[in-house]
């Protein structure tokens, strides 16, 4: 029988948006298959730091715990990722948990990512159907087209691609890979492509697709393996074509 192991978890805490961050350290009993969510729950059950100080449970976002809702993104040992699928045994100790840095902190590890949802509005990320009435089937689509589009539609809006992007910073309002990939997705759909122009125009201005500096961090960090750099290249091509057409024909 193995001896009773423990693990050390260091958490960067912040009581409220304008408060100063500080670090707290916790020692937890190790169990097999432990993930970061289980660590945070252990702390909530007994919020006492390594120095024996009583503190509060850690605030964080979570929901599905199977990496499909996009809630629990945070920075773990310096890398943006989902807490639920972060298995403790695959990390070096001590485990360091920080909130994402590109979004305003709400409290502790919980951040406000509403900008991403706002940007989905800006690029009109939807199929403009006429109504929910019975007006028959949707457009036909080949299995090939479906297989190209489906991976793009698996984006969980976690924000990891923004977190790792050097172009997303205080001096720039780059819209980011996830949104650009959604533009590509909707422009692929037989109905969606009828409105491709509006979407392209939304990413042609400042902060748009041209602001990508090709660091390619996004595609490496995406938990869903979405081909984000391909999406950026494709939307860039569409945008240039649109710009040229606009110059020639208005």
């Amino acid at each position, binding site marked *: 029988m193995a001896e009773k192991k423990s693990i050390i978890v260091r958490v960067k805490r912040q009581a409220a948006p304008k408060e100063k961050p500080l670090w707290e350290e916790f020692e937890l009993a190790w169990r097999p298959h432990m993930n970061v969510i289980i660590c945070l729950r252990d702390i*909530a059950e007994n919020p006492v730091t390594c120095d024996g100080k009583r503190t509060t449970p850690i605030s964080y976002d979570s929901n599905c*715990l*199977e990496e499909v809702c996009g809630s629990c993104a945070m920075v773990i040992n310096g890398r943006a990722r989902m807490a639920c699928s972060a298995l403790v045994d695959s990390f070096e100790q001590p485990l360091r948990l920080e909130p994402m840095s590109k979004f305003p902190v709400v409290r502790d590890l919980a951040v406000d990512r509403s900008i991403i949802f706002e940007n989905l509005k800006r690029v009109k990320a939807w199929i403009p159907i006429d109504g929910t009435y019975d007006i028959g089937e949707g457009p036909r689509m080949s299995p090939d087209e479906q297989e190209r589009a489906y991976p793009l539609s698996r984006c969980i809006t976690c924000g990891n691609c923004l977190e790792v992007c050097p172009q997303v910073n205080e001096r720039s309002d780059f819209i980011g890979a996830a949104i650009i990939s959604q533009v590509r997705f909707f422009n692929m759909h037989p109905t969606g492509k009828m409105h491709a122009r509006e979407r392209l125009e939304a990413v042609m201005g400042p902060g748009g697709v041209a602001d990508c500096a090709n660091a390619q961090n996004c595609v490496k960090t995406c938990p869903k393996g979405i081909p984000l750099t391909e999406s950026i290249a494709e939307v860039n091509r569409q945008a240039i074509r649109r710009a040229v057409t606009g110059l020639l024909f208005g």
Partner: protein
Amino acid sequence: MKNPRVVIVGGGLAGLMAAIRAAEMGVAVDLFSIVPVKRSHSVCAQGGINAAKNTKGEGDSPAIHFDDTIYGGDFLANQPPVKAMCDYAPHLIDLLDRMGVMFNRTGEGLLDYRRFGGTLYHRTAFAGATTGQQILYALDEQVRRFEADGKVKKYEGWTFLSAVLDEARVCRGICAMDLKSMEVRAFPADAAIFCTGGIGAIFGRSTNSVVCTGSAQSALFQQGVDYANGEFIQVHPTAIPGEDKLRLMSESARGEGGRVWVPRNPADARAPLDIPSSERFYFLEEWYPKYGNLVPRDVATRAIHKVVFELKQGISGEQAVYLDLTHIPKEVLDRKLEGILEIYERFLGVDPRVQPMKVFPGMHYTMGGIWVDNQNQATNVAGIYAAGECEYQYHGANRLGANSLLSCIWGGRVAGQAAVKYAQGLQDGSDATPSSVPEAEVKRQQERNAQLLRQDGTENLLAIWKELGNWMTEHVTVVRYNKNLERTETKVQELQDRFKKVNLSDRTQWSNQTLNFARELENMLLLARVITLGALARNESRGAHYKPDFPERDDPNWLKTTRASWRDGKIELNYEPVDVGLIPLRKRSYTATK
């Protein structure tokens, strides 16, 4: 009244569909959700959505879908609303297709369909193994479009606390709390639609998401909204046990040919693929030759329990059986099941394309829920509607796989329309309600918060939750004995007492998740008792409700809906007849064709 407002609580499939329908009818919608709606639990639905499109020449029809659903639910569902849902299902698939859901396609460019449990037909449209996510996103996008047009206003990061009821017990709005500022506020509404999903957290660990606590349902119950058939809890046969959650392995794995087995010799220490076929016990295929691995969930779950606990044939004596996909070509698996294979691989570090998965049943779904009427998804309180998993209407004593997405979207659509019509027909809207009514409700809720933050006891919130979950899982899931149900009722009452002495480890006023969970847990405890008492009273076995001491379905005594009410601080159980006017009763058995 002229310009009514409708409040919708919950932004999963049902809530979003209700919002779309209400907004489309020209009504102002306020949509409340604990999480950003795109992160709702509907994303976890994997396998697909049922509609009898009959695209494969099998002779399927909405009538057969209706019969499968009623039979699968062991005749406990009122039949007319189920028929209406099955009849309309093909139109809903068309609508989702038009919204751009990336359903898998056939060579002709049509939607592909696969088989699911409890049917012999290919009736389940699917988008890989992430169908719920894909459909939720499509509805989310449509709602975002209405939001951009100013027709829907979202309150994400707010939690529902209570309904605002006037002196005549008519709903005039809701009381909600901002989970950041902890502000409690009343929102006027002429009708409120509740789409607050599942109750998994009552069982501690389940396949449900964190927000699925049943807290809203319980709060409504305590305000006079009845709760029906609470004792019918679906335990999914194939989940991956985990300390934080039981992760679902979709029925679609079996729909695509996955096989469930254990070694014939439980002491067999060989790797699963080294065990020859003759030494494997494919118990579902042996016991149910016609449906095989695709028997309904309650049947498959009981079979696994029997194999593990009675026959002691779990793999290496553990509580686990194999779910085996290794005989299916990798290319097919990646195209049709990638989403779930990824989950298994990521959380267990084993590739299910080359190794059989180890699974065990896990609490998954509640068939029971808020009582609603047969036509309008209306509860017994005027102005309150319910749709989706939080209501009881469509699945009887056991839900068939891929019928939940359907019932969410259908129920949301019906509720959206009905709530708008009700609100438009009101003489006086919520604007005529004296302001003292919402003010009193806000005050009541603020005082509850203050009391919880103030009290100085010795009890630990999470410890109480764990005990609740352990008791409910052990005694109120797959196999039920009256003695244990009685003990559970006593235990939960004890937990309710202990809750009064709970000491919150966080007393701050900003983004206090502990306070919010305390409020949820208090509601969960009460709803746990509704479920347990319903199960205790029902002395028969029907669908997911199984009592070895009463092993048969008992129609003369128990063909009736349990309807729980809150009267003077007590749970009261009443019963009402089931409408079985369309499909005659017959014995449910999956050992042969039904």
